[in-house]
């Protein structure tokens, strides 16, 4: 008896499946017609990477190597250097988008909010070397998702102002102070 | 009135001269000791008298001297500590201004016991007057032959100098004081080696509080039993200088038997609380002791008595608070003091105390949160794992504030302001 029941159930299932597909056949497709229609992407969708700037227009990247360290496909490389005023910056900064998997770990690791993923994903081209982006290609003139943040205002090193003048800092200790 | 031993020559507004001191029996003990007693015998007398160190820890002075090994190398040093910076304490100053020769004789006797060749009186800069007095009187004692080579014909030679400090609370700590004398930063140093083995310039060094030493001549002269009899309680001996300050009618330094009840000290000797004031709490032994509430008002003020109510005698400086004083504010003031005076050597003290200060400041200024209280508790408990006794002492007022006066703290937090400020 069980076998027949199973058989019956099996056949019904097959038929149900057939019915379902047949039903969908009559539906209107849901596909969007790209590129005629470009669906607006959420701001947090992950595609091409940019390097943003501070509110005061300086490049945010301090070449701390955290993004390159965290990158699972090793597509980020850079060379840090010291600017004349002591600011740390990437002498060159390279992302190989031919390797990038747009996982966004670099953005998460970035302590200065410099590296950010944007919704722009249209980068395909015929020359693979064109997918190797240098700093000039990556730098943008805005702060990206957060226009306010300035790393050096919180870092505790003297860069955008003297020591003790930044957020949540006390005046520098006066070594020779007579006060107890 | 109780018998005055240390203050027997205390005159209002005047310093006792060497003659006055001699008239009262001064330098007899030294003469007796040099002529009749060996250092061991003097040491034994002090051990018998159970002379507890008056600097705060209460370690028997005789035992400390004993820890200088017989075959310890020479030269040996003796340091007399007049670096009292404990808020509420001023007995050393009173002593130096009352009877400097008693200090000198006590120091010489102690030097005799440990065969030291040089004594150093370490004076804080606020007591420049005391330092000048002592320097002058040391010269007088030298001229009188109580100091120098082969004192009074014996083969004991002893020099005494006054060393001025640059002024830091931590210099009162024994090992830190030794470092300070050596011209180094006054950081405490944990044994081994003990300073009685390797102290000043790596030589055996004994360091005593001045109030401990002034008792020595009297013990030598009158014997251990007499000294023990001076105290009110069995466990202790001798008299104690109690400095009473705060909201009392007659703040001052009073020589009373060890173990005099707190109520008696405040109400009889210090003239009771100011009109309109009511006893709320007191610190029984300076800043690094616990608040003592009304429930312990009758405690016997000696090392044992205060230990029983989980407190410390410390320097015996009674600071009296009345009901109009904000204890959170007082604690904040104390912690402020400790934060500033920490030597900065170990982490809990250097960084932990500012953390505690910050939390207390927020509570006092209406920015407190209930969750600060467990943080304060934990941090105060951890203060006991710091390098020296400074941080544990600093944590005591905070811990006792949280334990004995929790309502006051909660009131600060719930009202978002200090209830004592209008």
């Amino acid at each position, binding site marked *: 008896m069980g076998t027949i029941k199973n058989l019956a159930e099996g056949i019904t299932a*097959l038929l149900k*499946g*057939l019915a*379902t*597909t*047949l039903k*969908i*056949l009559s*539906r*209107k*497709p*849901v*596909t969007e*017609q790209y590129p005629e229609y470009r669906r607006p992407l959420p701001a947090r969708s992950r595609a091409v990477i940019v390097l943003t700037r501070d509110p005061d227009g300086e490049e945010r990247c301090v070449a701390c190597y955290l993004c390159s360290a965290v990158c699972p496909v090793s597509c980020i490389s850079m060379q840090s250097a010291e600017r004349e005023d002591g600011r740390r910056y990437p002498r060159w900064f390279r992302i190989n988008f031919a390797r990038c998997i747009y996982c966004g770990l670099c953005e998460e690791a970035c302590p200065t909010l410099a590296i950010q993923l944007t919704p722009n994903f249209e980068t395909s081209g015929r020359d693979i070397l064109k997918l190797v982006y240098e700093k000039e290609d990556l730098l943008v003139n805005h702060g990206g998702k957060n226009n306010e943040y300035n790393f050096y205002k919180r870092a505790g090193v003297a860069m955008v102002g003297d020591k003790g003048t930044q957020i949540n800092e006390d005046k520098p200790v006066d070594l020779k102070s007579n006060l107890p | 009135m109780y018998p005055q031993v240390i203050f027997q020559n205390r005159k209002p507004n005047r310093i006792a001269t060497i003659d006055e001191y001699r008239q009262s029996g001064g330098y007899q003990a030294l003469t007796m000791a040099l002529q009749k007693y060996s250092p061991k015998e003097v040491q034994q007398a002090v051990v018998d008298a159970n002379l507890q160190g008056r600097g705060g820890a209460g370690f028997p002075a005789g035992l400390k001297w004993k820890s200088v090994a017989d075959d310890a190398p020479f030269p040996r040093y003796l340091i007399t500590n007049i670096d009292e910076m404990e808020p509420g304490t001023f007995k050393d100053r009173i002593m130096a201004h009352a009877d400097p020769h008693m200090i000198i004789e006590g120091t010489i006797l102690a030097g005799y016991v440990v065969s030291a060749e040089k004594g150093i009186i370490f004076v804080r800069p606020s007591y420049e007057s005391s330092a000048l007095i002592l320097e002058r009187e040391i010269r007088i004692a030298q001229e009188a032959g109580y100091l120098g080579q082969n004192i009074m014909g014996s083969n004991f030679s002893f020099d005494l100098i006054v060393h001025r400090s640059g002024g830091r609370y931590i210099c009162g700590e024994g090992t830190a004081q030794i470092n300070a004398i050596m011209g180094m930063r006054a950081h405490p140093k944990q044994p081994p080696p003990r300073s009685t083995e390797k102290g000043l310039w790596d030589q055996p060094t004994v360091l005593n509080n001045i109030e401990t030493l002034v008792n020595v001549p009297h013990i030598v002269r009158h014997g251990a039993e007499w000294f023990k009899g001076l105290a009110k309680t069995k466990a202790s001996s001798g008299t104690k200088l109690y400095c009473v300050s705060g909201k009392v009618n007659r703040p001052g330094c009073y020589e009373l038997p060890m173990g005099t009840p707190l109520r008696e000290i405040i109400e009889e000797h210090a003239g009771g609380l100011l009109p309109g004031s009511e006893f709320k709490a007191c610190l029984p032994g300076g800043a690094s002791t616990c608040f003592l509430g009304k429930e312990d008002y009758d405690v016997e003020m000696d090392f044992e008595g205060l230990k029983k109510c989980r407190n410390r005698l410390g320097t015996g400086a009674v600071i009296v608070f009345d009901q109009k004083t904000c204890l959170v504010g007082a604690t904040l003031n104390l912690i402020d003091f400790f934060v500033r005076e920490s030597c900065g050597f170990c982490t809990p003290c250097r960084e932990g105390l500012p953390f505690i200060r910050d939390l207390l400041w927020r509570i006092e200024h209406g920015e407190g949160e209930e969750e600060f209280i467990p943080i304060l508790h934990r941090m105060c408990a951890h203060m006991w794992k710091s390098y020296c006794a400074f941080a544990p002492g600093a944590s005591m007022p905070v811990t006792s504030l949280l334990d004995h006066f929790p309502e006051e703290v909660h009131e600060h937090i719930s009202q978002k302001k200090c209830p004592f400020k209008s």
Partner: protein
Amino acid sequence: MLLEWILGFVFLIVKLTIVLIILLTVAAYLVWVERKLLGRIQARYGPNRAGEFGLLQPLADLVKLITKEDTVPQEANKGIFLLAPGVVGLMALLIFAVVPFGSGVTLWGRSIPLVITDLNVGLLFILALSSISVYGIALGGWASNSKYSLLGGIRGAAQMISYEVPMGLSLVPVVMLARSFSLVEITNAQSARPFIFVQPVSFILFLIAALAEIKRIPFDLPEAENELGAGYHTEYSGMRFGLFFLGEYITMIILGSLIAVFFLGGWHGPLLPPIIWFLLKVGIIVFTLIWFRATFPRIRYDQLMNTGWKVLIPIALLNIVVTGALVLGTS
């Protein structure tokens, strides 16, 4: 006589050419149809870029396949590797030689049968050729020198052996009823009543077995993409890959034609001309195959073997016995 023979030959060539062109075109557009249908069943558009409604897609595919580099793996058995796709394509085309797609037309006084050749053992010819076509797969899989291809080839061979038997057996009742191996005869035997009504069991058995023979979902284990890459044709590219593909889609049409011939009465039908009926029936079958593909998942290998040996063969045998008894009884 000679002229007759020459004329007949010319007609045959013309017929062959027409059939071949139609067949290839249909096969090519079948790809388009399948993709379009699959797309719609998945709520997508399917190909719609090359030409209107993507109608030029087959052409685009063809161009792409032809221009694509024809790679041969370094360690492959080159001769066999190159031969294998040809076998598949050729066998599929050969089968169509015996499939009748109409009753015949009269042109310039000549009666031209709408079948390339009406073999009197057409059915056996079909069975034979369909068995050979698996050589293409097995050889291609083996010659590629790739473990995926080899597995795919082995699976194809095993699957063919397992399902050849029930397929053959399921046609025995048909032959018993039509009393002929000729496909034309079989068609004609159904002029009144298609065999599907008298032999539903045979029909189902044949459908299942034939699905397995042409390796279509749910029986596409030889190329199981997610296990074997693409199975026997993993290593193929360009037009050689195209030949495998072509073979598959021609086979689909053949299967449709065979089912139409064996069970649906071939070109017989009321009102409409016979060729239309035939195409309609083939179309329905082909649509069903695509529909199945869009609906059913691939079965497991053990299920495949179980079904073939333990279910289909016994049922087919039983069906022969019952049919035989009934035929004897009624005649």
